[in-house]
């Protein structure tokens, strides 16, 4: 079992990333640096290449050019050190929630007691402690996504990659999930990179937001989100939030 990297190495450095599928150029020189413990949102319209960017970062796709370094190491393939959660989740339908959460730690060679301890802690953190024996199909959408994020966090990854994790949920549930994720990450030093087309999501979850251009995507602008870490449903109606949202929307639409 490998030890978690020191806090100062929990960063993401993307340099000159390019990716094409045949003649279709999708990513065109992406440069992003996410500081250790920071939450960074990549915001762009549908089809601009956000998911491709995250799949390259997660190691599921090879870049044509450029480098991706996560926690100090160059990404050459998928790894528990930079787990990704997608919109559809990654729970195994044949395993109970407890076994799903214990899947990664068990694979990394942890003892049964260690696995149980990690799982119990995550069940409480996700508010799913009453559902340890439930199958994924018995969970609601929001519960399933919480479980999918917990499954990846069970490996204690220095970096968490989220691909529109709450995109399939209704607006109310999504807002509750945003609040839950903020409180979950606040207690950890996990660096988080989220791709989304939802401006609310980006402004509620991220410390900084990178705006992507239309395809071929490149980061056209970065902005610091000027709200404290204690964000929630009330933040949505603050004048500063409303102003910033309108401004970001305008730039995304132009981009």
């Amino acid at each position: 079992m490998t030890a978690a990297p020191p806090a100062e190495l929990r960063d993401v450095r993307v340099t000159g990333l390019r990716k094409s599928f045949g003649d279709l150029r999708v990513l065109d020189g992406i440069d992003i640096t996410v500081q250790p413990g920071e939450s960074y949102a990549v915001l762009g319209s549908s089809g601009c290449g956000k998911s491709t960017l995250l799949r390259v970062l997660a190691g599921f796709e090879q870049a044509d050019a450029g480098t991706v370094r996560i926690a100090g190491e160059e990404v050459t393939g998928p790894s528990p050190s930079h787990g990704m959660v997608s919109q559809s989740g990654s729970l195994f339908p044949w395993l109970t929630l407890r076994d799903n959460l214990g899947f990664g730690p068990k694979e990394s060679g942890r003892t049964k007691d260690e696995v149980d301890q990690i799982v119990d802690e995550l069940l409480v953190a996700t508010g799913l402690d009453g559902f340890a024996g439930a199958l994924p199909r018995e969970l609601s959408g929001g519960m399933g996504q919480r479980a999918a994020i917990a499954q990846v966090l069970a490996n204690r990854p220095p970096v968490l990659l989220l691909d529109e994790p709450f995109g399939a949920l209704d607006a109310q549930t999504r807002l509750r999930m945003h609040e839950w994720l903020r409180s979950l990450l606040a207690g950890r030093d996990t660096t988080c990179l989220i791709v989304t087309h939802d401006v609310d999501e980006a402004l509620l979850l991220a410390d900084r937001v990178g705006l992507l251009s239309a395809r071929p995507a490149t980061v056209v602008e970065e902005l610091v989100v000027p709200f404290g870490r204690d964000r929630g449903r009330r933040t949505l109606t603050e004048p500063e939030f409303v102003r910033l949202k309108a401004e970001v929307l305008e730039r995304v639409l132009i981009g």
Partner: protein
Amino acid sequence: MSSTLTENLTKGTDDGAAAGRPTLRIRRSRKWLGVLVPAVLFALWAGLSGTGVVGGTLLPPPWEVLQSAVEFFTGEQLLTLPGVVPFAGAGPEHVAASLWRCLVSYAAAVAVGLSVGLALGLSRLFADLLDPVLNGLRAVPLYAWLPISLIWFGLGEGAARALIFIGALWPVLIATADGVGRVPSAHIEAARMLGVPRRRMWRRVYLPSALPEIVTGLRLSLTLAWMCVIVGELTGTATGVGAMMNAARESGRIDQIIVGMLVFAVVGFVADLVLRLVTRPWIRWSVT
């Protein structure tokens, strides 16, 4: 009134308190309907036999068949000459012989079918190499294997087991290959991300994900294995329900032939039921 209580977990809430709370739903079982058709057919058969419309040697009345069935299982066994297949009291022995023959060949077919099916589903190269050969071989009717089985394995046990094996092989092999080939890429990617090495992928992801298809294949293979028992036993085995039926044909005892058919139906039904009960926990997750 026959009714069952089923517990369903509620869905669609996210407060964590209401979701997952078991709710009771009463669902009336209508399984008794399955007995209705055989009962009507039996009554029809009995009625027509009573009026003399049917009957005689070609279709004896049901009470004669019932009498033969009782004799088959509980009658006093008589000493028979070597080569003569006994009937009275020999039921348990014949059923046990057929079942054992079936299970041995079925087990071999499952072992080969699962291994080759997994290999076909996991390896593109293996699939490209073997697909045409296997697709050709499975199109060969079971009866076409009969002459070569008799030459290779001789009359009796060896040929019977070979024929049952061939009949049972294809469903489990194809279902396994198909199920493994259909494993969603999201499961494979999730497993790689969670640190599953390539060598353990088949056990941690492919096999459990493909289990619903594999279980269907196992059930079809068992049914086919049991159906092939009669073909296998026609090659000249000394014991077995098929051997008894073959002897009954030679002596023109249609009542005994029908007893054999009923035994095949009942044992096949029970075997499938047992397999379903055994495999149900494996695929609980896929049952909606």
